[in-house]
């Protein structure tokens, strides 16, 4: 009984907070051009079947100071992580005496555009695979190296380095591959499922109320085109599964494991929701 009471109270409090601050201005009308050269697509028409008319990068919801950090690759502190990733790319590890570069050569050529199309179907494991899991697959099968534990070792910087090679490329997933469609379906179901004591689904904040404020936080559409992303809060690169878990935790729910079926399905669906946005990795957020 007490449990139900808590849930109701929290929901009311939240509903009040959202409506009381509905004066919010929504996304800013600015353009993101990286280093004055790379024109980024940060707003675009939503793909067919999308609940929103327009998909909008989280960049538009941040203050001008935060937006400026991302627009300059020197000032962007996440580029330190990307540079670490480049070093890892060229470092030999494991029993086979190989680095990433031993097979894939120059990442600026071999990885150009690649990161814009993950998660992809992995026939071997019969599930979708993201860049982090693809790196682990290479480490185990080609390099004879230990797979990285979630968010450990070189996982974040190497993922950021690989995805950065697709900077500006539009996100697109091939849902016709393997069983991707059914994972998309599962991800969609999760996106709309209310979790935790706050009784919130992803859609409550990021679909119904994006552009408004939750306390002092300007809610975005929750797009993932800039991950791994530098969050000012952590002053470090943050992986997409870490952010998923953080959001679910903040609803006061227990969160699924990184790379679990639940979060892989959610990654497939949420990535699709950003179809057409440029890869911004590494983005900078609050």
């Amino acid at each position: 009984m007490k449990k139900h009471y808590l849930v109701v109270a929290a929901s009311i409090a939240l509903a009040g907070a959202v409506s009381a601050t509905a004066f919010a201005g929504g996304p800013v009308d600015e353009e993101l051009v990286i280093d004055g050269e790379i024109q980024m697509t940060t707003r675009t028409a939503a793909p067919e079947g999308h609940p929103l008319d327009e998909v909008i990068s989280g960049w538009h919801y941040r203050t001008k100071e935060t937006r400026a950090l991302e627009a300059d690759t020197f000032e962007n502190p996440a580029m330190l992580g990307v540079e670490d990733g480049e070093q890892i790319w060229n470092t030999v590890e494991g029993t086979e005496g190989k680095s990433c570069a031993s097979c894939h050569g120059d990442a600026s050529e071999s990885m150009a555009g690649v990161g814009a199309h993950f998660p992809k179907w992995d026939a071997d494991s019969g599930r979708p695979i993201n860049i982090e899991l693809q790196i682990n697959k290479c480490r185990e099968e080609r390099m004879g190296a230990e797979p990285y534990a979630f968010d450990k070792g070189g996982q974040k910087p190497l993922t950021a380095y690989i995805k950065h090679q697709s900077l500006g490329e539009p996100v697109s997933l091939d849902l016709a591959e393997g069983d991707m469609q059914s994972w998309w379906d599962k991800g969609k179901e999760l996106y709309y499922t209310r979790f935790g004591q706050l009784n919130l689904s992803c859609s409550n904040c990021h679909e119904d109320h994006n552009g408004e404020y939750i306390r002092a936080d300007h809610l975005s559409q929750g797009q993932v085109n800039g991950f791994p992303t530098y969050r000012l809060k952590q002053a470090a690169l943050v992986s997409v599964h870490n952010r998923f878990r953080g959001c679910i935790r903040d609803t006061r729910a227990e969160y699924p494991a990184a790379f679990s079926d639940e979060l892989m399905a959610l990654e497939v669906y949420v990535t699709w929701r950003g179809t057409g946005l440029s890869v911004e990795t590494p983005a900078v957020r609050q």
Partner: protein
Amino acid sequence: MAAVKPRVKGPKSASAGEVITIKTLISHPMESGQRKDNDGNAIPRQIINKFTCEFNGQMVFSCDIDPAVSANPYLEFTAKVNEAGSFKFTWVDDDGSVYTDEKEIALK
């Protein structure tokens, strides 16, 4: 902590007497000494406490840095270039480590 890595950005050449802008960034957690670990023990302070920029051996700009400066300290400042030469940048860590970088500049 990953290796501490300084980055410097400035023009490769300038006209005599020109004031140029220099940007620097160094990877460093800037542990403030105010935080506690999961067991409640204070995490000791470890920051970059000093930065200097010299040109051909002469001091151009320096800073004394306190723990209120953000992780991965970013500094942007100017320098007047009267001759071709070499900038030397130095960061000093609480633990005594010194990190340096150099940049050559030519006259237009």
